[in-house]
């Protein structure tokens, strides 16, 4: 079906559901699954301040992806992981547009319209600007 799916995650429950949908799409096929996670720049200051050094910080970030990686592994799906840095929405959009992916799967935070206006929405930005189909998982 799809050759290369990018699964954009933030480690939250929505990401787990997005992972489940990806599994449904990919099981039994040879699709490449790429897990993409963006370390939000704006949180860098807090994260560096609270981390016990660079090594601990990197492992802490990978830890967020653990449940997602575990679920893909138990289904026998091959994947690789890409950690990006920057503002979550634009960073994912740029990465997806530059890659050869033919589908992006992303979870939606389920914000109501007031929250969306105040906080912005990563999934919204992805939907608007990415140049391939998007599967938005609620």
């Amino acid at each position, binding site marked *: 079906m799809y050759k290369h799916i990018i699964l954009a995650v933030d480690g939250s429950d929505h990401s787990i559901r997005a992972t489940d949908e990806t599994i449904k799409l990919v099981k039994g096929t040879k699709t490449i699954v790429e897990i993409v996670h963006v*370390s939000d*720049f*704006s949180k*860098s*200051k*807090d*994260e*560096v*301040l*609270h*981390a*016990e*050094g*660079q*090594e*601990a*910080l*990197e*492992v*802490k*970030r*990978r*830890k967020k992806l*653990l449940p997602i990686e575990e679920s893909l592994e138990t289904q026998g799906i091959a994947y*690789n*992981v*890409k*950690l*990006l*840095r920057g*503002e979550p929405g634009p960073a994912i959009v740029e990465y997806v547009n530059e890659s050869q992916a033919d589908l992006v799967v992303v979870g939606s935070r389920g914000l109501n319209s007031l929250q969306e206006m*105040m906080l912005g929405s990563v999934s919204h930005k992805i939907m608007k600007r990415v140049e391939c189909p998007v599967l938005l998982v609620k």
Partner: protein
Amino acid sequence: MLTSIKEQWFSNVRGDILAGIVVALALIPEAIAFSIIAGVDPMVGLYASFCIAVIIAFVGGRPGMISAATGAMALLMVPLVRDHGVNYLLAATILTGVLQIIFGIFKVARIMKFIPRAVMIGFVNALAILIFMAQVPHFIGISTMTYIFVAITLAIVYIVPRFFKAIPAPLIALVVLTATAIFSGFDLRTVGDLGAIQRTLPSFFLPDVPFTFETLQIIFPYALALTIVGLLESLLTASIVDDMTGTEGDKNKEARGQGIANFITGFFGGMASCAMIGQSVINVKSGGRGRLSSLVAGVFLMFLIIVLGNVVVQIPMAVLVGIMIMVSIGTFDWSSFKYMKNAPKTDVVVMLATVIIVVATHDLSKGVLAGVVLSALFFVAKVSTIKVETRVESSLTRFHVKGPLFFASVDGFIKHFDFSKQNEKIIIDFTDTQIWDDSAVGAIDKVMIKLAENQNDVTIHGLNPASKRLIDKLAIHNDPNAKLSAH
């Protein structure tokens, strides 16, 4: 060497120039406000920012980081300026430069790494509190109009960026409210009431102080405090910029660079400065990555002052107060509250002690020193050096690790391995050690991947079940495609 120059200066020209401009615009109110905190003429902070930003662009170790007049440094200068005057401050700045160069040469940057996280969090929180406290005399109990202007400044600074990000909100607040103040004739205190703005470039002069031992006695303690605080904040900021950009700067080069910059700045009428967390984050977020961004920021700042100096004196103090309150809120580490719930009790005590001592003495360096000592006392029970014994037996090499492996012993652990070994059978024996934290897992990973790169056959022995669980879950060395950094 030439490729490195090309990479550090010219690989991101457009981003650097734009970011540099944004930084300069955001920097003007801050440099002025910090000068006022220190009790000196606004030009002292502005000249300092210009000199430091320009010099660091050339000699700094962390491209993309912005250094200029800062609150942390300004707060330390208050008693010196009050009791002895600005010339002693300039002399102290020069001495600070010298000390920082010495610290850089002696690779003191590495020691800074061991300043516990609790102390750094305390530092940042105490700084935020002090910056806020310094604003109080400028807006409490002056006039209702002052409160109104402060409130409007805060409103602009927090609401406008949600809709319009191209121009820094503090600058918008500055322009709009200064114009309002000028045209409305409201009676507000202005920057001009506190000092004059010279629309000239800085000039070289020797500070007017007697070259005696007595002078040295007066300025040395301040210079030492400035050196410590300056390097601390600069190294913290460098780590943040490292993380944001995914690259690693040279900490010792940065220390030497800060020293050179401060040394020269003292001769040009500027106050001691250091790296700024807030502006560096703005720089990177605005697309700045290379040395050019710092240069552009400094030059553009000076250009604006020369061109717009007349207007700058009319900026109402209330606007600067509003901006400083925003800086204070942004500097404070709000996740400290969660930290206090989750961190070990001894760490929380260290953090609170650091904050209390800083606020009580108005001296960041005293708080840091007290925090470090306290933390060391708590930590002494836990710390032990990690030993790695190498034994070469008939067909294999055995590395026997002794002592706890955790963030403070990770470096020592990694250094013990001879990565030039090739095609050997290697056993790493962890029977006499404990893996304490994620740093340890990361370090073991690193070692295993590097050894595997040279076709060594590496096996791990003797992990206790808890450690084994951690490694199995988190380490990536078993993944044949693993590379050292996960990006």
